């Protein structure tokens, strides 16, 4: 369970470029919920994710994960609770390390690391097994450098990495935005599969209204650092993309000119 309470976050406070990113934002996400997050640029979507992951620390307010107050924890200290896939395929993996070394890193996410070899026969078999299930032929390329993979392959491996260690929360920050439509579709269905198999509490930021309604169990819309729309259950299943767009326009008080939002 994630509980975010009265979060305030301001960039460059006290300067002419002061930017109040999150305004008293509160949000409670129940165990096992799959929340899609939408909102225009600068609405605070990524900041919200960064507050939960620890990449950003809030000016005030609380972040509580599984009844543990992690507000002041740095990223690495929360890693046993939070798994993450970044928007940039380069960000979530180490291109200078091999595929199996990347998996070995994730296999110990949030766990104490010892002076035992990172790779051994058992975990290599496990990695091969897991990679085979991606159907990308990567199971024969364990020794290849991560940098040789395409963006889609890297995101698929990132997702796999996030599921190697049990975690409570999965954070997805527009993780298909840098991919072509077909690959994006593949990565999304893989996401769904991993979320369901591991019963993860998930937060997925997306720019696509269609994705926001198609995936997950609950949708929230952020605007100027606040939650302006929160729908789930029957109300959500009756909603179409056009309804959502209307609400989106209403909150912004302007018509949408961003083609990407309309067409995707």
């Amino acid at each position, binding site marked *: 369970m994630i509980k975010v309470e009265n979060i305030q976050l301001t960039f460059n406070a006290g300067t002419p470029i002061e930017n109040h990113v999150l305004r008293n934002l509160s949000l409670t996400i129940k165990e096992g919920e799959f929340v899609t997050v939408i909102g225009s640029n600068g609405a605070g979507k990524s900041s919200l994710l960064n507050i939960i992951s620890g990449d950003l620390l809030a000016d005030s307010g609380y972040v509580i994960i599984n009844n543990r107050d992690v507000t002041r924890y740095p990223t690495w200290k929360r890693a046993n609770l939070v798994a993450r896939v970044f928007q940039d395929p380069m960000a979530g993996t*180490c291109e200078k390390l091999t595929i199996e070394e990347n998996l070995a*890193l994730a296999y110990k996410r949030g766990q104490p690391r010892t002076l035992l070899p990172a790779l051994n026969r058992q975990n290599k078999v496990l990695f091969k097994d897991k990679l085979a299930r991606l159907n990308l032929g990567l199971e024969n390329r364990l020794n290849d450098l991560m940098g040789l993979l395409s963006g889609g392959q890297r995101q698929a491996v990132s997702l796999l990495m996030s599921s190697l260690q049990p975690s409570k929360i999965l954070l997805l920050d527009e993780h298909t935005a840098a991919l072509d439509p077909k690959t994006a579709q593949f990565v999304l269905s893989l996401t769904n599969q991993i979320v369901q198999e591991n019963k993860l509490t998930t937060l997925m930021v997306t720019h696509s209204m269609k994705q926001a309604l198609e995936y997950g169990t609950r949708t929230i819309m952020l605007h100027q650092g606040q939650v302006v729309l929160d729908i789930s259950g029957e109300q959500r299943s009756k909603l179409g993309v056009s309804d959502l767009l209307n609400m989106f326009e209403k909150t912004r008080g302007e018509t949408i000119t961003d083609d990407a939002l309309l067409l995707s």
Partner: protein
Amino acid sequence: MSFEIAFGTLEIGLIYALVSLGVLISFRILDFPDLTADGSFPLGGAVCGVCLYLGVNPWLATLFGMLAGACAGVITAWLYVRLNIMQLLSSIIVMIALYSINLRILGLGPFLQHETPRMSGSPNLPLLDAETIFTPFINADYSNQYYLQPLIILAFVVICWSLLNSFLNTQQGLALRATGANARMAKAQGIATGKMVILGMAISNGLIALGGSLFVQTQGNADISIGVGTIVIGLAAVILGENLLSSKRIGLMTLAVILGSIVYRFFIALALGNETLQRIGIGTEDLNLITAILVTLALVLPKQLKKWKARRGANA
């Protein structure tokens, strides 16, 4: 090139192989441009030298030299990690501080032996009569010194190389490599990257100072000036090694650096022994200039070659 000179060249190549392994860790694995080396190499030499001067067991003295270097690395890393001073600047600060500290340490030997009335620094410390790790193995007439010393240093290099390889393939070692390669990802995987940088810099400068400790024992004196250009020589070996043998496997990456260091020394020896160059007056005093030119060429040439090739391709 005579047998003796070849072994002498090998010896110095092997000593600097330890330095190069240290430079590999900081520059390549951690992506930390670290100039501490110019201070930690003579620091290892000075600490080891003073211990030898005072009659401490030479193996212990070597170990102390290495630990002193590790401490210097920790301080540099700490300035960067905790006080947020730029990497390059932190290392320069520590390097410059070590210059004074090394002078003090070198002066400590005669003072503690009551040979000088007051505690003052000294730019060098003679170790001609001191017992070194080599002493027990060498004949009274020094007839086997020229091959035994390189052999013992080779043993050091082999041990450090295999220990380093095993470490870099452990869970901790992998975390260290991830820290340098992608710090944001490393943090998301639960790695305390700050601690990893401190650990890596300790290992790096420990190896460099071990090189310094062995160096003074082969030279028969400890001198403040041995540190000048350490980092450039180490970097030269790293770059040369990468060109000789490029691999993604950590064991071969480290081996390449060792080979690079030895090959580099043979280049230098050949250049200094070259009669034409000698005739136009090039001597040992030009060593650092030659190194600087070689490193510049090694850094620039591969990129330029690529550019020329690309331009040719465009014209064709």
